[in-house]
């Protein structure tokens, strides 16, 4: 058998093996496997966030805050952006599990992995004291067993977004105040060729943000305050399910039953729907790209049900991973970020898209620049965590991520009887809550 001994100048087998060994060793050293020493000043802080629907928000962080922090401390900030739309939770879960080199993050659904987060009570308490105090409802998420596991930032408010011109055309000069009125107007609008588009698919925000408040407004709850008793099987739930089925059939675009979070933005901006439940990003996009449409969009609080008006939070909180090699450095960064010198301008860069959970910003001048954004500030007053009235714990994370409540409504819309959809949802809930 002919063997290559390298005599012709080509690589011999031994050379190849040597090369491989050297390469492997080099890769090992180059990968920087050694953890950073805590006593040494860190070279960088890695901060992870979901990309914002308002691009100015990320731009402000990149162009203003990162250079400023580097100038003041000599520490570089790496801003790792995860695409919006549901991939941030799996990403943070995998960071906690694999102890990936990320120091701090927007800790979405932190109830799933609070044990993997540092106690940041000192920062949260100081920031609250300094800036008018926190909205108490958010403490249900950030405070766990007496310790702050995250520092609240803001709520991505979810309100009713609607085409005022089309509502006017059917005689609804003010936005319907109750769910029943909302249905009546919707029937007229659908007949006029302008249906609603109320998301009921496997998204994470735009579905929960109206279906849960609607359920609560009808007097129903998923789980009791004790966090153990499943209370969904009730006459109030049945009424809410019947209502949603009718709303879907008589007032909505068929497609909305399968929508993920970006779909209602797309449908609204392409004039396919007259109303949806969403953050203020639709108006921001319209003003930028479709100025004519931007003039005829308005916002309103969720309609109220027999038991009141409710909103659900899409909260943004920042936390520090317990595995960070340098907790002091990460805490310094988070404290610096939440200082009014930084955070106020950061809030304003996105036109208060993240409504601050700090009372100091309740009457911030920024809210007056676009009066149509004011309902999003009001959401903070009636907003609840999605687990309400139960505590926000990991079990509710399962409810949300398995879309148990959402699918109860969606199945009803496809024709499954009310009793069946409630029974199926209750079975799913009992598997989680025991």
């Amino acid at each position, binding site marked *: 058998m002919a*063997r290559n001994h390298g005599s012709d100048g080509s690589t011999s*087998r*031994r050379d190849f*093996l040597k090369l*491989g060994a050297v390469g492997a060793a080099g890769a090992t050293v180059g990968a920087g496997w050694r953890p950073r020493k805590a006593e040494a000043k860190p070279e960088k802080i890695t901060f992870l966030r979901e990309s914002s629907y308002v691009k100015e928000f990320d731009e402000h962080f990149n162009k203003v805050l990162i250079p400023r922090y580097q100038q003041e401390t000599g520490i570089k900030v790496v801003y790792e952006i995860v695409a919006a739309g*549901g991939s941030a*939770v*799996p990403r943070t*879960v*995998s960071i*906690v*599990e694999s102890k990936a080199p990320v120091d701090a993050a927007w800790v979405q659904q932190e109830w*799933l*992995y*609070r*044990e*993997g987060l540092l106690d940041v009570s000192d920062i949260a308490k100081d920031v609250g004291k300094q800036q008018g105090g926190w909205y108490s409802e958010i403490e249900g998420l950030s405070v766990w067993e007496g310790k702050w596991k995250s520092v609240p930032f803001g709520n991505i408010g979810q309100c009713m977004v609607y085409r005022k011109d089309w509502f006017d055309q059917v005689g609804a000069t003010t936005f319907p105040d109750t769910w029943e009125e909302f249905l009546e107007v919707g029937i007229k609008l659908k007949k006029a060729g302008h249906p609603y588009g109320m998301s*009921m*698919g*496997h*998204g994470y925000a735009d579905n929960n943000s109206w279906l849960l408040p609607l359920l609560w407004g009808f007097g129903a709850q998923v789980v009791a305050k004790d966090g153990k008793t499943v209370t969904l099987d009730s006459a109030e739930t049945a009424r809410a399910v019947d209502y949603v089925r009718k709303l879907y059939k008589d007032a909505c*675009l*068929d*497609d*909305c*039953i*399968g*929508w*993920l979070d970006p779909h209602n933005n*797309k*449908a609204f901006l*392409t004039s*396919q729907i007259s109303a949806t439940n969403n953050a203020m990003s639709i108006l921001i996009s319209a003003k930028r790209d479709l100025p004519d449409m931007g003039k005829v969009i308005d916002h309103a609080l969720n309609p109220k049900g027999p038991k009141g008006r409710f909103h659900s939070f899409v909260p943004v909180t920042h936390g520090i991973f317990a595995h960070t090699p340098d907790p002091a450095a990460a805490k310094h960064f988070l404290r610096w970020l939440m200082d009014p010198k930084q955070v106020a301008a950061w809030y304003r860069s996105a036109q208060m898209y993240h409504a601050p959970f700090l009372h100091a910003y309740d009457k911030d001048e920024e809210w007056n620049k676009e009066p149509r954004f004011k309902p999003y500030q009001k959401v903070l007053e009636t907003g609840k965590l999605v687990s309400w009235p139960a505590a926000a714990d*990991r079990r509710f*994370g*399962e409810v949300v*991520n*398995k*879309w148990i409540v959402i*699918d109860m409504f*969606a*199945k009803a*819309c*496809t024709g499954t009887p009310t009793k069946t959809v409630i029974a*199926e949802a209750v*079975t*799913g809930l009992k*598997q989680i809550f025991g």
Partner: protein
Amino acid sequence: MSRVAEATRPAARAVPSARAFRLREWLEREAVFSWLMLAPPLLFLLLFLGYPFCYGVYLSFVRRPVAQPATFIGLNNFLNLYNDAIFWQAVWNTFRFTAAATVLKLAGGLGMALVMHQNFRLKGMTRALLLLPFIVPTVLSTVAWQWIFDPGMGLFNRLLMFLDLVKQGPSWLGNPTLAMVSVILVNTWRGLPFFGITILAGLQTIPDELMESATIDGAGWWGRFRYVTLPLLMPVIFIVTTFSIIFTFFDFQLVYVLTGGGPANATHLMATYAYSVGMSSGQMGMGSAAALAMVPVLGVVLLAMSSYVRRR
């Protein structure tokens, strides 16, 4: 240099050179060298496939919420899945999705290969273009499909309305049945070139003489296809179908991007369900059990494939 040093030098050199010679000989032995060459890919597989798989098996027997210690619970995760209606819906969906998409891809791929085997102008370019769905990243093409399925602006509904076939197009992703049809359609579109090109490669190995003999014996196009082409293509068709079943059964990206498993779990597959339980809900044990539930199917497919290859 001292005399002593000079005197000892050749002897000192002789030892390492003898060692080097023995090492060289050892390395040149076929058995040693082949194992050395095999070692890197084996290590790679063990590290990036074997370790995660074994860890997944371990996780499936424990209760292991993210960031919490594991508690051994035996088969409880599997029992919970057995009693989970969503899991069974995902299983049913996965089988329907895999069966329909594979049959469509096989039929379409065979047709595509037969056409591509003919001589016509711009054949090379057409072949290259037909590979596009396979080359374009799935996430990117799926986003494009989202637009195609859009009820108001989408290509399908616009076409239907333009042809005056409907007054208002259907909701492709909002209707549970149509949503499943849509994901099957996209999977078929993406997988068709894999079938087409592989079967075309098989077609090109069939000697022309066989076709000529069959023609002389009076076989028409159907006879040539049924009794010459198809039997000779069977090994290729079997292999490509087996691979396709595996890829389709484990498909994740397409459904995750297009529907997220909705509406009302109508398109939830075992892979997307395992992901939503394990990664989104943070139940690592239960998620691993759901993912492992796919392994027996893979096992059956692999057994069928190996027994076929052995028989051949």
